[in-house]
């Protein structure tokens, strides 16, 4: 290529300025556009999600892959709701007391809405029992029966004592009661005989009295020993009476419920258990006596509450299967938990304190979870997998599961699980799980991969405009003028880094619309126009552009050395890009190369000092390979080259500087200066082909800004890979400068084109004799390499030098 042909490599203004207006749609404002397709360009992911949620077979859960902000949750939820609407609401579930083993509460399931009905029925029953049981025990009928029982027992006691008293009286012995027992003493004239009187009695009488007291003492002791048996007998009689009375009182109330739920055998069995338990514990339901330690007396309301029902899943209000998105997927929020309450310094719990998690809430329907958050919470992923494998939820604390907790707690019956889980996460997370979790693909067989962008076509541009208009309406923003819509579309292409594609990152779109609306409102407008969109974009750059401003300032003050005029051997302006998340910017960097005779090494100084990343090192190695394959292939490569990013004190990665690095090396070898009013970006392969790189827009704009600051004179420009033309979505001021001829964008296919533009000298192509044209860049490079080879050979052949260098 001759210098006269350089203009052919310039990118035209038409290539720089892209229009995003489809021919078939006419509108002035966004509010004139009809509703569009809700999930534009995601048909592949939509089909996958639909398939996953429709297949009933085990393991066909769905993983939605896509970046944050791509509306992945909304899409999953919308499709799940669409499918849920075709299904009936799920069952109701409740926990009830297990009277024989309170630590293992039982479950009962009900048709939709019946669970709540049963809970209310049981509450009514408890209210009835609360009144009727004490009333039964207070009734005259019961009292009379109890009195009869007591009288019968008292009669037995009195008969025993009467017999004893008669025996005592017959022997003139009195039975006196002390606070703790009895004293037997001889009586005479209704008075106890004292020692003096006793001593006056005849010997025989004294002996008789003593003997009588001994006999009576034995009889008294026998009576006392018999008393506990009598008391036990009495208690049994009273208990039997209470049971009879309760059986009648409770049976009447429960039989109504039994009839109502006769179609549900499990409920009927539970009601039988309730009746049995109430009757067995009849004494507990009576009003408690006053106690010196009132806090030890069991509250009767607490006794009754054991017949309550803990309705943990109620779908009463639902008309379709549940769709749950749990934003905070901690263990308890997913699996459920058993709560505790403090009672006199001790933590206690029962079946009423079992709380459901999202798995149960979504049982019979769909559960949507953010995978990153699932993995951020301890134990959740394992617990979720266990539940899906076992197809049941067992509510227990993770401490218990892993044996960390030794205190006894509840072990509720597991609840069968019929659920479809939709995980939403980044792509890398999905691929990592595929590789590192062998169970992952067994459970999540369906991957729904969201597209990042949409191909630019008239049809898609129209659909995209409708989508933007929908978002504007949904968010109640000011209508966008046609020009503003164009500007938004341009930004969507820029976000996609491709003028032929449109980004499907919905959050950034919504942010741009919202912020543009803000700026329009700030100026009191009733419509958003293109300047509001531009302002929004500029303000993002201003808010996040502090590092960019600092670098630009350093370049203008010659702290960071960047030449934008003149020419220099072995020195080229490369282009870097910095990614700050929502904002990226580019700026020129000085790349220099030095060469001397050597053994065919090109040293990447960045790599040597461990500031270069692997891809950068790869780029340098490729350029070394390109060098050796292009020039003087019949002599040993006798070069030692050093390449460095000057004034770079942080890490460098990527291969987008490999064209610049090779040009600097060749400039050094050929001793031909490189134009400093140009910057170059692009990667290179071993054959010298220049390949596309990322961040091309930011890189061009970064160089343009520096040149504009110093004054554009028409000589400034940038060299980019030709394959990057389709990625150009440049700022309006850059396009305008190009249009005015103040700035140029050269697009090159290979290193020769790049070299020609940068040096202003033809690079040179080999002729039929395989020789480069004399005075071409390549000719000079090859000549220098041959010279290095000869010098090296001569050097090696001198006595005492290393012969292997030949």
């Amino acid at each position, binding site marked *: 290529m001759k210098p006269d042909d350089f203009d052919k490599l310039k990118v035209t203004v038409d290539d720089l300025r892209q229009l995003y207006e489809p021919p078939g749609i006419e509108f002035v404002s966004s509010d004139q556009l009809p509703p569009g397709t809700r999930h534009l360009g995601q048909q592949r992911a939509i089909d996958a999600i639909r398939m996953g949620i429709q297949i009933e077979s085990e393991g066909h859960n769905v993983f939605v892959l896509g970046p944050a902000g791509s509306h992945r949750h909304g899409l999953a939820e919308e499709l799940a709701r669409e499918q849920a609407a075709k299904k009936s609401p799920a069952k109701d579930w409740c926990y009830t007391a297990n009277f024989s083993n309170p630590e293992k509460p039982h479950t009962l399931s009900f048709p939709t809405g019946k669970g709540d009905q049963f809970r209310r029925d049981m509450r009514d029953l408890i209210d009835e029992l609360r009144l009727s049981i004490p009333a039964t025990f207070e009734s005259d009928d019961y*009292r009379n029966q*109890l009195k009869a*029982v*007591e009288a019968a*027992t*008292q009669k037995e*006691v*009195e008969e*025993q*004592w009467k017999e004893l008293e008669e025996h005592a009286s017959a022997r003139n012995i009195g039975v*006196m*009661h*002390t*606070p*703790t*027992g*009895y*004293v*037997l*003493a*001889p009586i005479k004239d*209704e*008075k*106890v*005989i*004292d*020692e*003096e009187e*006793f001593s006056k009695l005849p010997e025989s009488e004294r002996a008789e009295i*003593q003997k009588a*007291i001994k006999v009576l*003492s034995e009889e*008294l*002791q026998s009576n*006392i*020993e018999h*008393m506990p048996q*009598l*008391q036990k007998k*009495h*208690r049994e009689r*009273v208990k039997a009476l209470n049971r009879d009375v309760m059986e009648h009182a409770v049976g009447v109330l429960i039989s109504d419920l039994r009839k109502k739920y006769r179609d549900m055998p499990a409920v009927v069995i539970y009601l039988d258990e309730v009746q049995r338990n109430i009757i067995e514990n009849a004494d507990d339901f*009576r009003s408690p*006596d006053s106690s010196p330690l009132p806090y030890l007396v069991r509250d009767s309301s607490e006794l009754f509450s054991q017949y309550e029902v803990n309705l943990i899943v109620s779908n009463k209000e639902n008309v379709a299967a549940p769709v749950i998105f749990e934003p905070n997927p901690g263990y308890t929020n997913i699996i459920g938990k058993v709560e505790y309450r403090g009672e006199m310094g001790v933590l206690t719990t029962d079946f009423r304190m079992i709380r459901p998690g999202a798995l149960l809430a979504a049982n019979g329907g769909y559960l949507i979870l953010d995978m990153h958050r699932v993995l951020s919470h301890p134990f959740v992923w394992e617990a979720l997998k266990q539940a899906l494998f076992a197809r049941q939820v067992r509510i227990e604390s993770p401490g218990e599961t892993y044996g960390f907790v030794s205190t006894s707690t509840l072990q509720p019956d597991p609840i069968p699980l019929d659920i479809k889980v939709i995980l939403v996460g980044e792509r890398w997370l999905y691929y990592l799980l595929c590789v590192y979790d062998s169970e992952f693909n067994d459970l999540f067989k369906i991957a729904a991969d969201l597209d990042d962008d949409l191909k630019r076509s008239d049809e898609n541009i129209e659909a995209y405009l409708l989508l933007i208009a929908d978002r504007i309406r949904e968010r109640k923003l000011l209508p966008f003028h046609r020009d503003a819509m164009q500007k938004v579309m341009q930004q969507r292409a820029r976000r996609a880094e491709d003028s032929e594609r449109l980004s499907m990152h919905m959050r950034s779109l919504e942010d741009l619309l919202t912020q543009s609306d803000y700026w329009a409102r700030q100026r009191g407008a009733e419509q958003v126009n293109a300047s509001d969109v531009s302002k929004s974009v500029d303000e993002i750059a201003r808010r996040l552009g502090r590092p960019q401003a600092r670098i630009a300032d350093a370049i203008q003050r010659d702290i960071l050395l960047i030449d934008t005029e003149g020419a220099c051997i072995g020195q080229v302006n490369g282009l870097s890009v910095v990614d700050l998340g929502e904002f990226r910017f580019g700026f020129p960097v000085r790349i220099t190369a030095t060469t001397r005779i050597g053994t065919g090494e090109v040293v990447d100084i960045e790599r040597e000092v461990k500031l270069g990343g692997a891809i950068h090192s790869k780029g340098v190695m490729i350029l070394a390979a390109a060098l050796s394959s292009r020039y003087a292939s019949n002599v040993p490569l006798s070069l030692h080259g050093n390449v460095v990013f000057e004034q770079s004190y942080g890490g460098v990665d990527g291969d987008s500087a490999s064209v610049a690095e090779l040009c600097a090396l060749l400039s050094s070898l050929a001793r031909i200066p490189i134009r400093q009013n140009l910057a170059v970006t692009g990667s290179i392969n071993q054959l010298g082909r220049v390949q596309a790189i990322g961040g091309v827009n930011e890189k061009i704009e970064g160089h343009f800004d520096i040149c504009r600051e110093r004054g554009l004179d028409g000589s400034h420009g940038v060299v980019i890979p030709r394959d990057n033309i389709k990625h150009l979505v440049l700022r309006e001021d850059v396009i305008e400068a190009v249009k005015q001829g103040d700035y140029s964008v050269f697009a090159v296919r290979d290193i020769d084109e790049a070299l020609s533009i940068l040096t202003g000298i033809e690079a040179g192509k080999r002729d039929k004799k395989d020789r480069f044209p004399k005075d071409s860049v390549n000719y000079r490079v090859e000549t220098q390499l041959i010279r290095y080879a000869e010098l090296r050979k001569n050097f090696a052949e001198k006595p005492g030098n290393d012969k292997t260098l030949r």
Partner: protein
Amino acid sequence: MTKRSDKKPRIVIAVTELAPVHQLWSAALKLLAESRAELLAVFITDDRWHRAASLPFTREISRISGMDEDFTARRAIQVHDEAIHRTQIQIQELATRADLKLVFEVLAESDQQRVRELVTGSNDTLIAPSVIGTRPLFEELRKLGCRIVLIETRKETYPGPETRH
């Protein structure tokens, strides 16, 4: 020792260890409703515990276990004092509940002089268990001409099974 301050009528409740206080108290309340008399409770001791304890072979048999042990003079004093204490608490509680002022005194049956000081004439009333009627004390009281109300107290019952009503 209580001294009489004026000619205000007096109701004396004579309680013994074997007589239930409640019955006597009920009778006293009825009389108090008729006249604004001052109230005095007298615990009349007897020496049966001491007499029984003086015998070398007397033993106390536990109501709970049926085990027996010597019934000593010391134990007799303890039982006697406990009976007085229990009775005093019981009757004082009844007076407090009825918002009445009550003087409690312990009196030996043989202390005839004190009996004459407590009950002086026809204005005064003595409420006593019927068992007093067989005692020599009763004869002394009759001579004083005071009004005597004898209450037929129920016979001490044997401990039956514990039931709740």
